[in-house]
């Protein structure tokens, strides 16, 4: 059976840790390796940070929505905001592209998400906001045929 959890929270930087731990504790069912879980949490952080600082321009009245489902050893995570949206998704995904160059490690968010997950999809519009979705296999990864 499929198992789903949803979380939502105000666009406050301090809620990023909450989101990371919530997703990690759901993913923990699959008993991933420490490294895979750290990668998953990093991808969640990047998407949540983007929703807060880019989507909502750090206005805490905005809400960030995360849904996660687990099926067949894989976690599927959807991180959504109802913020300003992304004009050009292809451009936004380019390494080093950023509209906030004053930030640290600027422009690497999507690159990190792509690198640390198995599949990344981004949808966005200025009317409805941004949806980032990724999957990551956490169990049953290595088939060791001896």
């Amino acid at each position, binding site marked *: 059976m499929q198992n789903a959890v949803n979380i939502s929270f105000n666009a406050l930087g301090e809620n990023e*840790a909450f989101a*990371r*731990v919530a997703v*990690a*504790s759901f993913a*923990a069912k699959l*008993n*991933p*390796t*420490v*490294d895979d*879980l*750290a*990668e998953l*949490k*990093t991808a969640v952080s990047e998407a949540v940070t983007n929703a807060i600082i880019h989507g909502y321009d750090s206005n805490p009245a905005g809400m960030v929505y995360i849904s996660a489902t687990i099926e067949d050893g894989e976690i599927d995570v959807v991180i959504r905001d109802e913020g300003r949206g992304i004009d050009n998704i292809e451009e936004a995904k380019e390494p080093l592209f950023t509209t906030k160059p004053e930030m640290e490690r600027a422009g*690497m968010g999507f*690159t*990190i998400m792509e*690198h*640390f997950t198995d599949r990344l999809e981004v949808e966005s519009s200025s009317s409805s906001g941004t949806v980032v979705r990724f999957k990551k296999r956490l169990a049953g990864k290595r088939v060791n045929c001896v």
Partner: protein
Amino acid sequence: IGEIQRFLRDDGEVKVSRRLKETAGKMRREREAYTAEFGRPPSIGELAERLDIPMEEALMAQESSRRLASIHETVYE
């Protein structure tokens, strides 16, 4: 990215459940030691700091050490 990945990938194939169980054991011992020393239990932040582990790990480890038996005792005492 390589740098971030090397930073994250320090544990090889260690499973989360094993890591958290170890951390939970350390937390339990440190809680006892702290309470004996200061006459009150530590905050979750103090405990994480004394064990030099991230708060997030402390939060997840506390879950893995949950003991239901103690609830019974507390309520019936």
